[in-house]
């Protein structure tokens, strides 16, 4: 019996579960705020997988470096995304993604 938390695959499975929950949330929920949070969940899951794989490559910091850049890009994405949510709310008085139908027809 492998010890919990001492095997690489445990982390990868956990990351895939979190990614799946985030993907379902992004598609099922129509509140754009919750959709943005689901995107954050998926980015976090990918970070976890990167760091876990980097753990078995001793002396190589590539995975953790990539996770560092992902965190920087996620911060920029959230800043711009929430600004777009605010502008969208001023335009439509709604935060539901179904109401963003100005380009329809």
């Amino acid at each position, binding site marked *: 019996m492998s010890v919990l938390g001492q095997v690489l695959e445990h982390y990868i499975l956990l990351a895939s579960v979190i990614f799946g929950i985030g*993907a379902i949330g992004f598609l099922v929920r129509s509140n754009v705020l919750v959709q943005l949070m689901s995107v954050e969940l998926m980015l976090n899951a990918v970070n976890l997988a990167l760091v876990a794989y980097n*753990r078995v490559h001793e002396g190589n910091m590539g995975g953790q470096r990539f996770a560092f*850049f992902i965190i*920087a890009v996620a911060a920029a994405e959230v800043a711009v995304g*929430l600004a777009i949510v605010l502008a969208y709310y*001023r335009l439509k008085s*709604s935060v539901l993604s179904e109401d963003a139908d100005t380009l329809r027809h």
Partner: protein
Amino acid sequence: MSAASALFSICGIACVAGALATVAAKNPVRSAMGLLATIGGIAGLFLLLAAEFLAAIQLIVYAGAIVVLFVFVIMLLGADAAPVREVQGKVAKGLAGGVLAASAGGAVLSLLPTSGKGHALSAALPTHGTVDAIGRSIFTDAIVPFELATALLIVAVVGAIAIARTRPVGPRRLAPAARPTDLFGGPVNPRDDAGRPKENG
């Protein structure tokens, strides 16, 4: 059960429960708190994976900045952030989400070894994941992406300000003095005098 296994269990449960709360909660504030639990759990897992620097960055950037920004926007929108109107076509969306999640899980499972106990993690090198090691790696191998990331963050901040400061749409208010006769004391041309309201009766 060793301390590492206990920490893995606690952080894993916090991650999954927080992710489920983020997706399932009706109130976006509860979603943000679920996201906070997930982020804290992942920071703990980073500690287990000998990534101390990333654990600190995760807590500072995600829990300290991103979740706070989410809560700020939720409070700014007020009650409208949690609309009571529910979604139509939830079954189709759920199916699409299930297919996406299943394909992601299948891709991961296909990468994992089917036999054996998997890759056991030996004790990490003392230099693995320290600020020293990551800083050396960033400033030697990845100096150009690092500088580009600074440019990206500045552009994102300026862009966020530019987008969030858009004025509300609606009929544009005209300047009060629209006709030339209003700009001056009398008509510019005598024939314009006809439509001008007479002052003093």
